[in-house]
């Protein structure tokens, strides 16, 4: 079975300060991991994905995540928060077998950026 745990349901940061959204995963084999973002009243958008090519993954809007197998973690970071980063963020792992993989979502982290 595969699962993800997002350790913080809410994170607040000031604009211009670093962002850290934490995610731990559980997987019986090498997982594919993703971070998705959902802005209010908008659809889910892929930020970045890890598929075993490189442990440090760079995504859109200055976000990046590092896959750490020893810690079973895939934390999302950004050096400097922007007001437009305020949204809900989901850590996601694939599960299933065959040629298509359904996603298992974490419970989400709501990011608030304070002026």
């Amino acid at each position: 079975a595969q699962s993800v745990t997002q350790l913080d349901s809410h994170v607040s940061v000031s604009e211009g300060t670093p962002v850290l959204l934490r995610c731990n995963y559980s997987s019986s084999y090498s997982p594919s991991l993703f971070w998705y973002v959902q802005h209010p009243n908008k659809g889910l958008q892929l930020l970045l994905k890890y598929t075993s090519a490189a442990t440090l993954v760079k995504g859109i809007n200055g976000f990046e995540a590092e896959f750490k197998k020893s810690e079973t973690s895939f934390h999302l970071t950004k050096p400097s928060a922007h007001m437009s980063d305020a949204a809900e963020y989901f850590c996601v792992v694939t599960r299933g077998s065959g040629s298509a993989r359904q996603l298992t979502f974490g419970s989400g982290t709501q990011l608030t950026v304070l002026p």
Partner: protein
Amino acid sequence: GAGVSQSPSNKVTEKGKDVELRCDPISGHTALYWYRQSLGQGLEFLIYFQGNSAPDKSGLPSDRFSAERTGGSVSTLTIQRTQQEDSAVYLCASSLVLAGGIPYEQYFGPGTRLTVT
């Protein structure tokens, strides 16, 4: 290009009525997925299609829920005898088929907000 589209965007129905939710995937995407996003339950997988067949229906919460896909394109999620706990946002996603062990990105539609009164 056109993304995943879903209709209707909002649906309000009375308890006990049947509803149909539609998803138009990105052209050429052979894999199609349905998810449900509800308060208290987060985002949960319902069913996926590979072409017109559904290899995994394990996420469907009850036998009131069914889905079909025709022509390898449009999919319809049907909920019979709706209950208040069915109120949620229903999301559809599509993707290319897995290749070389690496899953392709799933592209999500805007969702259908279902409210059962």
